[in-house]
């Protein structure tokens, strides 16, 4: 490929600095002794201690985790089903509406999704809490899952599935033993995406939750509206750390499996 010009190097360096400096500052100042977040007063981990002693934050974190696990799991099942229908379903009544309902939530402003679900729940007289947040999160994240999974299904060689059916597998077995292992990476990344979206959501959760359920982003929101706080810096550092470890581990795992697949191919070629 072409060589990088000085201009390329400068724009990459400045761009990456722009992306990472704000988070770096946040991380560094979470270890600041002083309550004044912009004045450095020495190294300390006391804000982490305060954070772990803060029951409200821990409760909110627990609610968020439960909502994220449940909603992303249901969303993965529904989203995979929807992807299957979109790619393999052929023609059926209302197909255009169906694909419209899959793609629309991806671009819908959160305030509108949140408002519409809240009005529905109130209209039905449903008590708002963890359950309604789960319903809301499942609805928008299943659409993301279905986009991720259907992009994989499109490239999937259908002959493999037909071969299994010809060899006597039931459709369910063919799906379980042939299709699922092949689309598994997409299903897993769909789940991860749904999980992250749910962990991250503030607006839809604010609309659909009741007094009984406060999620972590809602808790963070109510305290950052009052300005910068060292406890939130500590919390942010923990979250940034978890994500970094997760993403780096996932990308290493993908790289490993790609290397393994290549090696398997080479071995197969040699023995053949």
């Amino acid at each position, binding site marked *: *490929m*072409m060589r*990088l010009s000085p*201009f*390329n190097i400068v*724009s*990459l360096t400045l*761009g990456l600095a*722009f*992306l*990472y400096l*704000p*988070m770096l500052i*946040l991380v560094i*100042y979470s270890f600041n002794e002083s309550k004044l977040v*912009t004045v450095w007063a020495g190294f300390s981990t006391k804000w982490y201690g305060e954070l772990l002693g803060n029951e409200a934050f821990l409760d909110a974190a627990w609610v968020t985790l439960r909502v994220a696990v449940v909603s992303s799991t249901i969303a993965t099942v529904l*989203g995979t*089903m*929807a992807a*299957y*229908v979109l790619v393999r379903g052929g023609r059926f009544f209302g197909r255009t*509406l*169906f694909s419209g*309902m*899959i793609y*629309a939530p991806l*671009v819908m*402003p*959160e*305030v*509108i999704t949140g*408002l*519409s679900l809240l*009005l*529905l729940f*109130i*209209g039905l007289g449903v008590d708002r809490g963890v359950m309604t947040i789960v*319903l*809301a999160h*499942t*609805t928008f994240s*299943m659409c993301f899952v279905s986009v991720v999974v259907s992009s994989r299904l499109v490239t999937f060689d259908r002959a493999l599935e037909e071969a299994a059916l010809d060899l006597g597998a*039931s*459709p369910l077995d063919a799906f379980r033993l042939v299709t699922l292992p092949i689309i598994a990476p997409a299903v897993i990344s769909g789940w991860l995406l749904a999980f992250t979206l749910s962990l*991250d959501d*503030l*607006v839809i959760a604010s609309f659909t939750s009741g007094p009984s359920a406060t999620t972590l*982003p809602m808790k*963070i*929101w109510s305290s*950052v509206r009052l*300005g*910068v706080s060292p406890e939130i810096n500590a919390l*942010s550092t923990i*979250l*940034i750390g978890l*994500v*970094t470890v997760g*993403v780096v581990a996932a*990308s290493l795992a993908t790289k490993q499996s790609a290397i393994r697949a290549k090696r398997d191919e080479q071995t197969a070629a040699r023995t053949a």
Partner: protein
Amino acid sequence: MGQLDRNGRRRVGVVRRLVLITVPYLWLLALFLIPFAVVFKISLSDIALAIPPYTPTAKDGIWTMLSGLDFENFVFLTEDDLYWKAYVSSLQIALISTLLTLLVGYPMAYAMARAPGEWRATLLMLVILPFWTSFLIRVYAWVGILSGEGFLNQFLLWTGLIAEPLTVLNTNTAVYIGIVYTYLPFMILPIYSALDRLDGSLIEAAEDLGCSRLKAFWLVTIPLSKNGIIAGCFLVFIPALGEFVIPSLLGGSSTLMIGKVLFEEFFSNRDWPVASAVAVILLLILIIPIVLFQRNEQRQAEAEQ
């Protein structure tokens, strides 16, 4: 399964297909489409001092309900300056930030596409990583940087570039910075993938035929990455238009964005019918860029075939 005859097997297949279609279909109907119908209906209702704070409701009977609906809230929206200004300023803020994101993102995507092969995976990961970290935290990070005694002012005062601290936080400038920062990956990725597919020999050909490097860039690279630019711009513009977190946290009281107005109308004023009317109009405005975006994606998919 083995005992079933051919017809039985087919019937099982039909039932399975039906279940596969019906379950996600009904879910989306109940929790995506019907809620919109509810919003639309409430936008035509009147405010009432009860919970739910609007009339008429379905309990009054279908006919009374239908005859009680009118476009009063929409008329109200056109009469009150606030809403007009909020729509116009949302469009303006979204447009300016999209252009700024393009200005920051294009050189980065360009440099990534020219980088040696072994760097690319790492660079790509570095661009995607912030996308996985909490949106709220990334916006919050700028509060400490842009505030009066924040890091930006400290730095600028230290270098002697300014004598007085600048007011950046709680202005539209802070909102632009926030949008560029949080949506940058959405701009870089489609442009990078367009540039990555670009055939380097075309640029060489242009240069051999006497184009300067800048001219070759302008006449060859930019037009060939046009689809990536368009996709990136829509991916930033569409969510920026309805943004709530960024204007609330970084913008000031004078920053008008429709997402913020809707949130406040609903939670502070508790005027549900007007909030619903605001949402319906925002949706109507969004349909245009969404349709254009879809068309661009379709054209690109067709071009690839």
